[in-house]
Every structure is written in structure tokens, then in C-alpha cells.
């Protein structure tokens, strides 16, 4: 299925779900620690994934785009120290792209039909919708609170 990287560009997928594939993306169910890449449901307990943190990629399912649990799971995995690639798999829409990146995702895997009606330009525009937002601690560039703080610090020195 089409894969979108963090810049909003469709890229080839180096992983395959086929059994015995060279770079296999395996279901979490039945996977052993040491797996190259695993795919998990958004209801998976984050601690149960710690033994798999050596994986190159963890893919998190979004059963529906309005189901926001994947955002929290990604954030928790980053918190627990996972540094590999996080992939969101499901019918996300362009307006969620920036949120997904902020919560720690690196790429989105979309259903065919879904990608067909949302060209790269839509994702790129949507990702830039806000030049800065308010929340601290999300992977989103400099947030507004920190920019205000920097301005205050600049003010005292200058």
C-alpha cells in the first residue's frame, strides 16, 4: 500500500507482509524479540513492546481515522525510549499528518483509494498548516510557549 514519508512524499516500501520476505513486517502476535519490524494494534500495552525495541520499525494500526489511540501509543513508545521508525497504518487524512509527526510517527501507510484522492500536495500543505502550536514536548519544531520564553530571555539580555 502507498507509503508517505515525513516530508509528504510517496516512497517505495522496503518492508513486506509476505511470509518469508527478506524484510518482513510481522504481526506482533507470534513475533519474537529480535524481529526486524512488527505491526501492532492500537490497543497494545506499550510496556509489552519494550523487548521489541531493537526492531527497525513498529507499525501501529489506525482502524479508522477518527480513532486517535494510535497517537497516544506512538507517544508512549517514544517516551519509553523507542528510537526506530514508527509507522501509522490506516485511512488517515491529510489534516492528521502534522499530528502524527508530532506524536512521533515517521511515515504513514495508506489504503490505495485513499492515497489516490489525496496527492502529495495535500499532505505537504496540511503539514504546514500551523507554523507553530502551543503544546510543549511534542516533536513539532519550536512551540509557541518556548518561543515566548525565548523572547522573554532575549528581552532581559537586550
Amino acid at each position, binding site marked *: 500500500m502507498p507509503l508517505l514519508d515525513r516530508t509528504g512524499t510517496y516512497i517505495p516500501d522496503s518492508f513486506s507482509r509476505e511470509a518469508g520476505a527478506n524484510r518482513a513486517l510481522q504481526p506482533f502476535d507470534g513475533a519474537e524479540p529480535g524481529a526486524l519490524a512488527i505491526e501492532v494494534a492500537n490497543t497494545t500495552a506499550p510496556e509489552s513492546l519494550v523487548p521489541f525495541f531493537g526492531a527497525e520499525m513498529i507499525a501501529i494500526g489506525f482502524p479508522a481515522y477518527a480513532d486517535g489511540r494510535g*497517537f*497516544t*501509543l506512538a507517544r508512549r513508545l517514544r517516551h519509553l525510549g523507542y528510537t526506530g521508525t514508527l509507522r501509522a497504518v490506516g485511512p488517515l487524512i*491529510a489534516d492528521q499528518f502534522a499530528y502524527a509527526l508530532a506524536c512521533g510517527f515517521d511515515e504513514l501507510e495508506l489504503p490505495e483509494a485513499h492515497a489516490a*484522492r489525496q496527492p502529495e500536495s495535500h499532505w505537504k500543505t496540511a503539514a504546514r498548516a*500551523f507554523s507553530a502550536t502551543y503544546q510543549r514536548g511534542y516533536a513539532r519544531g519550536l512551540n509557541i*510557549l518556548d518561543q515566548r520564553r525565548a523572547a522573554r530571555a532575549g528581552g532581559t539580555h537586550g
Partner: protein
Amino acid sequence: MYRYDEFDETFVRERVAQFRDQVRRRLDGAITEDEFKPLRLKNGLYLQLHAYMLRVAIPYGTLSAHQLRQLAHIADRFDRGYGHFTTRQNIQFNWPQLKDVPEILDLLADVEMHAIQTSGNCIRNVTADQFAGVAADEIEDPRPVAELIRQWSSAHPEFSYLPRKFKIAVTGAAHDRAAVLVHDIGLRIVKDSVGEVGYEIIVGGGLGRTPMIGKVVRDFLPKRELLAYLEALMRVYNAEGRRDNKYKARVKILVHEIGIEEFRARVEAEFAGLDKSTINADPEEQARIAAYFASPTYAALPASDPALEAQCKANPAFSAWLDANRFAHKQAGYAAVTISLKPIGGIPGDISGAQMRVVADLAERFSFGEIRATHAQNLVLPHVAERDLFALWQALGDAELSTANAGLITDIIACPGLDYCALATARSIPIAQALSNRFADPERQRDIGELNIKISGCINACGHHHVGHIGILGLEKRGEESYQITLGGDATENAAIGEILGPGLTAEEVPDAIERLVETYRAERLPGESFIAAVRRLGVAPFKAAFLQETHHAAA
């Protein structure tokens, strides 16, 4: 009042541009109607029975004269000359065209307003005590923290696709005017034993299909920890709130199903693991926001104006208006004044563009340019010098805005119901009008005293009927409207859910039934005892008996 800095300004402008782009992509077919719906809802745009409805945020109910004038302009140009204040301190416009909505949003942004998150499964517009900064029983003004939460919750990357809507209310006073016990999260500003100011956090209150009173999840949270704690709590809800049934998706159900102790333990575990210094707003940011809410420069006035007594003597109507609509101000010689949007027989919360302009002018003349919207669908001028009260009353009278009924039986809260709302099962506005006419006599209203009637047109309970002293819920039974009456609800610190009195009534039967309840109270009350106090003392039994009487009560 808070003023946008360059960041807030840019954010709101970018939100308008984003919405324009969303509308364009919807019209192109890049996104489906199903995908567009949550996007428009998160910008306050509903599709109602006859047309679109745009719900504009009035964060924590604070408005400037300048902003109210712009709302008047929007009402005249894009609605049919009216705006409708809601039970969550917002304003709704009922007739905008989809194509005009981005332009309306531009006009709002021009006056530092928006429609962000007034709907949808996200953190909604934050509400607060309408007498914030005014009330004498206040520990601290709740608006700075409400503003901090407004900013933090806007376009939140993790909490914009929650199981269900999420409402937060804040109060800084001992007497709760913000209904914090019936919100998803209620914040009470409190002091700990050494005098440090912080928050008591209440979770899991709410109305709707399964009304519940919130429970304390944290007795005391230091001020600086707020955002990290909210992040922890929202994360637990986002991960574990039910998504299989929208009627069970609110946080109250999660709290109910796992119990408050378990919920608390999960939130605390999440909170303990957070690197709080990377999440919380620093004290300088809190101080920056708080500075905007400093009191205006009051004149030094005597505690009571000597002319007032004479004006009252000469004008009983003025005196009655003061009795009902004046609220004691912390500053000597000042009062906060409720402008009732409940004229006898009118539509609760409706105000014309022309009236908005009058209120804006009067706010500039008499109230430092400030106005509040209340959850009872009225407006407030928060800082009026007592010596100006008479002139204010006269000017309000000229605009038909001097109804003397704040908190009285005709100050009825009603949702739009079947006249507008696509979800309604019955009308609510005509019921409010019939009751207002029935109890129109000002003498009688004063004699009855404080009594809140709240009406919802369906089980979603936007009219907060569960917490009305008398609640009226409009349902549909075999194709007919049927009204269920509840008694004893309370939205304050004594929060209670009303008890159902008996079988549903037809619209025509409602006024008589309510009258029987009121007469029971009048017959049974102790000197000085309010309706709700009498219900608490007597229990529902005598009221139920009166309610169930077949024969209509013969008045007088």
C-alpha cells in the same frame, strides 16, 4: 482581558486558512463527507434541520464591546439579524451559508475570536464563572488558567481524536457558578494548608444520557504542574475510553466502570513517568497571561451610592430589577449586572444585532468595555459603578433588555430543540415561552424567588435539565412530544441530578404541572427558604403527590 500576541494571531489566521483549504478539498472530492464532518465540527460548523449553524467560541465567557459589535455585524449580515447565546458561554448563528463561513471566520479573527473546538470529539471551549474577577468569594480569578488551557488544548496533536467530546470548566470561588461537578474535568482553585494556590481536580461529571456527578481525582495539584497533569489524564482517557459505543464514550463512563481509585492510579502512574519540565508552562508564562486579567482602574467610591435609595423608592421597577439582576462586587461602590436575555415570552438566549450594539455601547460607557456571557444564556456587565445603575437600567429598558428576572422562574434555560436542532425529539423553545408567560407576573416571580427551570429537547441534555431545580426533557412517544419532569437538580457545589416525578406530559399539560410544584413549595416553605432548599428538606414526595394530581390546581 486577554489580548492576542503575534503567535495567537498567526495561529488563528492559519486556522482560518486551514478551514478554507478543508472546504476546498471537500468540494474537490479529495475528502469525503464523512471525513469532512469532524473537520467542520472542530470548527464549530453543524448541519442543522434547515441550514448550517456556526458556533463561535467565547472563551470563558469574556467579551469586549468591540467583539460584541463584530458579532452584531455577523448576525446582521449572515444570520437573520440574531445571535443565540448557549449554555456553554458560546454564541450560535443559525443561518450561514457554507461558502460564507471562511469569511465569517476572517471577521472573527479580526477581533481575536474563533470557532475552534466548539464542537467535535476534542477538548471543547473552556468555561468559567461569569463573575470571575468580580466575586468577593474568589480565591483567584479563574480566567488566566482557562486561557492557558484554551491555548494548550487548541489543535492538540494527541487529543484531537478523542473517544468523545471533552468539556472543562474552571471556578475560583467558593460558590460554584461554573458547574464544575458536571463537566468531564472541573477545576476548583483552592489553597492548601500552607496557603499555596493550586487546583482540586474533578473528573467524570456530565449530563446527557447517563448523568453523573464528578469525583475528585486530585485534592491538590500545584499550579505549575497543571499541563503535565492534564496531559496524563487525557492520555489515559484517549487510550482507554470506550470507542465501541458513542453513548459510553465519555470519560464519566470510564471512571464509572473502573472506579475512581483505579482511574486515579492510572493517571498518577502516567503523570509520574512524565518529564514535567518539558510540558508545563513556566511561571513567567502563567504570569504573562494573568497580567491581562488585572482589575480595571476603579474609581474610589463610597460603599453605597446615596442616590440609589431614592431612585429605588421612586421607581419600584428599577428596585425590582436591582434585586434580581445585581450581583455584589468585590470593589466598593460597584456592582456586576445581569442583562437578562429572557424577556417574557421570548426565546431564551436570543439577542438581535441592534441589541448587541446597545450592550456594546453600554459596556463602554459603564463597564470598562467588558461583557460576560453566562451559562444561563444571559449577559453580564461586570463592573458598573452603583451611581450609574439607574442610567444603565433606563438605557437597557429602551432596548427591551431590562427584564428583572435573573435567577427567577422565568430565567429559563432552553436548548434550541426541534425548532432548529437535527437531533431533537421535541420542541423546547415553545415550552419555555409558555412557562414564561404563565409566570410573567413580576410580583409572583419575586415571591417564588430563586428557581431554575432547564429544558432540553432530547436526551443529549444541552439544556442541562438534569441539574435544573425543575428539569424538563422533551421526548417523543408514539409520534407525540412527551415531556418528562424532574425535580431537585442542582448545578452548584451541592450538585444533584433531578429525580423523575412521573409519566410524561403533553406540551399543554406542562405549565399546570409546574404550577402545582411551585404552589406546593409556596405552601410548605419555611420563612426565607428557597425552592431548592425546600425540596432538599422535604424530599420529592409532596411534590410528586402534587404532580400526579389529575385535577388541575385552581389558581388563587
